[in-house]
């Protein structure tokens, strides 16, 4: 694909004078680019002078699909955005839809969604840090992380039936209620995870090679982070103390005692440490939530006319029958205000928000996803200037770029 390089070099004449630079195509098919990213690097020996990202190799038309699928069908598509932590995408999507509808969830559902959001945060950070470890050469760390993720997959599979890409949430509730088996599995995970986290920290936290490869590499200052719209662990590692779970509490986060993890250095090592610390805090939230899970129904009541009532109600009460009919039959479905809304959550990658335009029917008129990976990938040329070729991999891994969220 032809790329215009003139825009990123200030002076074209200056560029011609520096013709000792060579171009390396860090192509869309490369093991260290997590799936399909392309970087055209202009190198002076080993030093990166400029990096021009070329994206769109996974652009699948998610936003156009959002205008054709209804709110409960689209949750299956949101799974496939940030596929490392699909539950947090589902929760973000339905959080925005419920904000548009003005629905208040049941306490049990809020706690459930909080638990699942935190478990998917652990899953995402495990993979991100695991990938950073793998790309810098720490293969054992990667295998430890993947084994823990398999345990999380077991939990998700027992709950929703799918290892990942589980479209678990529905408008006003969830697909299935949690069962005692799943609660036991979560308890077992909570008991066993701190030991593995300690093992993983012992592998890399004071490892000379890892620290040398990641300290002072890819430094992002606080002012630059805000100016370039960074959110999530990347911004928090630069000193921006913004966490939507504390600043704009949603779901049940107000009930739990946890801390927001920040660092000031802003380099890859700080981002790695912030993610490790966030996993600990997430585990604390899960431990508190699973012991205090409120009883009651998971879905909102029949009066709201958004979730399918359970079969007992459909067969025995008239409201249940009518509600089921209204939701299932073609050309019906719940009505949505003729308005626009933006609902955001703190996903593991940053602020994941959906800007929804409702037009009365149960198909969104416009479903815009605010993708944290897209905005963070724009940071990359700024971070990598002046570093060496081997730092490209470390910085790219620490930014946690998921290509499907990047390209949508």
């Amino acid at each position: 694909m032809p790329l215009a390089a003139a825009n990123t070099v200030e002076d074209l004449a200056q560029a011609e004078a520096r013709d000792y630079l060579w171009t390396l195509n860090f192509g869309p098919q490369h093991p260290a680019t997590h799936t399909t990213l392309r970087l055209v690097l202009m190198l002076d020996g080993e030093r990166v002078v400029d990096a021009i990202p070329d994206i769109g190799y996974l652009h699948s038309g998610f936003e156009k699909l959002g205008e054709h699928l209804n709110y409960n069908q689209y949750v299956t598509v949101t799974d496939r955005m940030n596929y490392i932590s699909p539950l947090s995408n589902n929760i973000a999507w339905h959080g925005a839809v419920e904000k548009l509808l003005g629905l208040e969830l049941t306490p049990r559902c809020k706690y459930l969604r909080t638990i699942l959001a935190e478990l998917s945060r652990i899953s995402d950070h495990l993979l991100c840090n695991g990938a950073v470890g793998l790309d810098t050469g720490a293969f054992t760390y990667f295998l430890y992380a993947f084994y823990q993720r398999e345990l999380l997959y077991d939990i998700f599979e027992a709950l929703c039936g799918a290892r990942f890409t589980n479209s678990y949430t529905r408008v006003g509730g969830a697909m299935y209620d949690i069962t005692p088996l799943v609660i036991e599995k979560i308890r077992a995970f909570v008991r066993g995870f701190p030991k593995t986290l300690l093992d993983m920290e012992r592998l890399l936290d004071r490892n000379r090679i890892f620290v040398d490869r990641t300290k002072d590499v890819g430094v992002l200052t606080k002012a630059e982070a805000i100016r370039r719209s960074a959110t999530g662990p990347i911004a928090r590692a630069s000193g921006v103390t913004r966490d939507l779970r504390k600043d704009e509490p949603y779901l049940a986060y107000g009930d739990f005692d946890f801390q927001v993890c920040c660092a000031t250095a802003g380099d890859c090592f700080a981002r790695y440490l912030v993610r490790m610390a966030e996993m600990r805090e997430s585990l604390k939230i899960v431990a508190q939530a699973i012991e205090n899970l409120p009883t009651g129904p998971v879905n909102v009541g029949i009066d709201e006319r958004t979730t399918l009532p359970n079969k007992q109600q459909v067969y025995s009460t008239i409201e249940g029958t009518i509600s089921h009919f209204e939701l299932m039959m073609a050309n019906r479905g719940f009505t949505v205000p003729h308005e626009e809304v933006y609902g955001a959550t703190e996903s593991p990658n940053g602020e994941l928000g959906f800007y929804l335009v409702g037009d009365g029917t149960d198909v969104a008129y416009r479903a815009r996803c605010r993708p944290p990976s897209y905005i963070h990938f724009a940071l990359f040329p700024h971070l990598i200037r002046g570093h060496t070729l081997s730092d490209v991999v470390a910085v790219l891994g620490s930014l946690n770029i998921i290509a499907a969220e990047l390209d949508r």
Partner: protein
Amino acid sequence: MALDVPENVVVSQLDALASWCRKNSLWPMPFATACCGIELMATGASRHDLARFGAEVMRFSPRQCDLMIVAGRVVMKMLPVLQRIWQQMHEPKWCISMGACASTGGVFDTYCVVQGIDRFLPVDMYVPGCPPRPEQLIQSIIDLQDQIQREGTIGGREFATRSRQQPKRALVELPVISLPRGVSHLPQGVRVE
């Protein structure tokens, strides 16, 4: 006249021997684009270990692989890259299309996703699923191994048969039904403006 064959001599066909060698050392080239890529990584990880089946290393260089596993949706910007990598692989080579998106386009019947890579590449094995479980991918590799053993020749003549040469399609496209606006619950057809 019967030959007196000592005990430590095995007699076989050259084709069978070559196929046996090839099938038990299929080195995959993971062309991981999206969510199926994560399941591919999980298949290679410790719980479901793909290395047991000969896929010891997942080399990312097409010159060193024989099996290309296309895991994930292929968009029109990526397809020339995919074709180039296929061309760079050496003979004999096989292709597994992993997941619904690579086989038929999957959930994404949109303006940019290729509705099945078998429109543009010869595919030997399709793995359904979104994403397929690691066990399904391992089953597909076992099936591919059986197919190689059955049909393999040392010179690669099995690729010259008519059935292998013709492009076959996993998805037959039906005419798009144009629905009136507001009808969204019907399972088939996608609303076209």
